[in-house]
């Protein structure tokens, strides 16, 4: 198996993936950020600030919860949920925005920008910006503005400006294009808080490290509860930040299987999905080399997922690396499977998962029954589903 896992290298490469493929204007800002982050990482004052914010503002540690009725109904492996939905603002995204906003403050940048799909990262960014008194602009695909209106209003209440993006496919990738255009124009006073483990170096590494608190807590919690490590880790993968956050502290434990679940949309075979690790080829988009959905001319494909947060044609470069290494495996769940999982978790456990996280639950529902009751699955329940109530109600023909 692997020797101790070490990635990325000094220039941000995870094997052949990652790197920093950006317009030259941003090179200096990325170098400054990498330098500052390196300093902050070894600065106990920064670490104490970060830890204190996670404890007192976010409410960490989040519980590791044994889903006993779900386990019983599936009749197989024991299922634990890492309750990232209980974080302040309702998802794991805030772990990263806390860290990056502290860095923005250290850089003396008074303005932060973000892209958002489902709105969770936008809300998490607007929240920390409000708390630190930073100006905040959030770019959001016009289609997502429509399907996630609750989060749009939340961001506005938090004092952020939400800019709907009408170009391209009007979803997350287009929001990221527009955020990059803003950053290239306002780089002197602005920090771009990328919300996932993608983008140019150092973002994939930095966001992973901020999110690794998920896996660190889960590791000690499962050891305490069961006296051993889990057999399988499961997390949904859009850009892949909640998955990397869970996986990373286990990557040197070869007996722990790691499963990322991509958005299968209408089914991977239909082409209408957002599952580049299942049905993509390596390419370069948004500053990094990674698996992408593209046509034979390299044009980025339109994606489909019921979940705005997974509706993205690329994926963080470290996932591409873990896939090629064979260290992690990447499955998919369709819209329908995710919806069924959403309903099951509501009814069996009294927990309303985000549609994103419901993809991970769907994998559990499909695979736990074939496992033995001695085995343990640990799932990252990355966010709560209140924001998705309108989407689900519409599918039920109910206007709220």
């Amino acid at each position, binding site marked *: 198996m692997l020797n101790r896992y070490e990635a990325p290298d000094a220039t941000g490469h995870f094997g052949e993936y990652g790197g920093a493929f*950006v317009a*030259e204007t941003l090179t200096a800002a990325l170098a400054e950020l990498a330098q500052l982050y390196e300093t902050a990482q070894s600065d106990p004052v920064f670490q104490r600030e970060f830890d204190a914010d996670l404890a007192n503002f976010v409410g960490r540690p989040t519980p590791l919860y044994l889903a006993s009725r779900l386990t019983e109904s599936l009749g197989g492996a024991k299922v634990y949920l890492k309750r990232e939905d209980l974080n302040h603002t309702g998802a794991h995204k805030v772990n990263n925005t806390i860290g990056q906003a502290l860095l923005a403050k250290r850089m003396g940048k008074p303005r932060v920008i973000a892209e958002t799909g489902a709105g969770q990262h936008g809300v998490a960014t607007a929240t920390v910006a409000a708390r630190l008194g930073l100006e905040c602009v959030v770019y959001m695909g016009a289609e997502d503005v429509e399907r996630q209106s609750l989060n749009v209003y939340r961001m506005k209440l938090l004092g952020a400006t939400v800019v709907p993006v009408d170009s391209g496919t009007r979803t997350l990738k287009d929001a990221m294009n527009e955020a*990059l255009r803003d950053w290239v124009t306002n780089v002197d006073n602005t920090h771009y808080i990328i919300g996932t483990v993608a983008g140019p170096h150092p973002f994939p590494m930095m966001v992973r490290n901020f999110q690794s608190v998920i896996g660190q807590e889960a590791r000690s919690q499962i050891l305490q509860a069961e006296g051993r490590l889990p057999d399988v880790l499961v997390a949904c993968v859009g850009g892949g930040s909640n998955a990397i956050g869970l996986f990373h502290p286990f990557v040197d434990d070869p007996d722990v299987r790691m499963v990322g679940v991509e958005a299968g949309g209408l089914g991977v075979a239909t082409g209408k999905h957002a599952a580049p690790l299942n049905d993509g080829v390596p390419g*370069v988009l*948004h500053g990094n080399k990674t698996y992408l959905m593209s046509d034979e001319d390299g044009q980025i494909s339109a994606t489909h997922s019921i979940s705005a947060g997974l509706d993205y044609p690329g994926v963080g470069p470290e996932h591409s690396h873990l896939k090629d290494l064979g260290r992690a495996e990447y499955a998919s769940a369709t819209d329908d499977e995710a919806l069924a999982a959403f309903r099951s978790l509501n009814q069996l456990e009294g927990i309303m998962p985000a549609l994103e996280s419901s993809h991970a639950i769907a994998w559990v529902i499909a695979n736990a029954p074939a496992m033995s009751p001695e085995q343990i699955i640990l799932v990252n329940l990355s966010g709560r589903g209140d924001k998705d109530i309108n989407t689900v109600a519409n599918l039920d023909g109910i206007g709220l």
Partner: protein
Amino acid sequence: MSRLETRFAELRAANRSALVTFITAGDPEVDATAPALHALVAGGADVLEVGMPFSDPEAEGPTIQRANERSLAAGTRLADVFGCVATFRTTDDSTPVVLMGYLNSILRIGPREFARLASEAGVDGVIIVNLPPEEASEIRAEFDQYGMDLIFLVTPTTTPERAKLIADACTGFVYFVSLKGVTGASHFAIEPIADQLAHLRSVTDLPVLVGFGIKQGSHAAAVVAHADGAVVGAAVVETMAALSGAARLDKLTEQCLELRSGLDA
């Protein structure tokens, strides 16, 4: 000598600054491109940049974003981009043509195949907006096989050390981005970048061209004392969208004449 070397030698001999124009291939349809290129040359364009339309043009302002969208909506393929250049070449074998676009257009078919097809079509060089020199070794090696120039960009945020590194990585010419921002921005000014341009010219023998935000003769005139030429994109792309037929071609020629008058004043 390559077409770019020849052209810049001619310009130097005549003590003239280069006028470089940009339009997106296939905007608004494939057949529009070659006639437009000829019209730009007729007005005095010395070098032609041709954009490869891309689904996610993250460095472009609204004008060129829309050009990309129009082109893709009309069904432009990579093969059509090469086709536009080949068509142009049937009646113009001297004006250099440089493709400009994004890395994924090259990676998907592979740098070797890309260089082969581009070279066959009569392309002289390529500018890849999201490719830093540090990541370019494979592409450089393949392009060298076909004598295809590879041009990188220097910007106002580039440090002096890095400007030299980038200039050393360039063949053909060096592209200096005049401002922090996207294409078509409206805050062009020469004073803030004059020192950087002087430094850049002191560390390279290649021609230095300035682009982004240059829309008219007065902008181009401001560049002359500090660089070897000016690149004009969004201003002519707007004409591609606003007019059609003979009126479009006349206007393109007229715009080049006006820019030319600024450069030659």
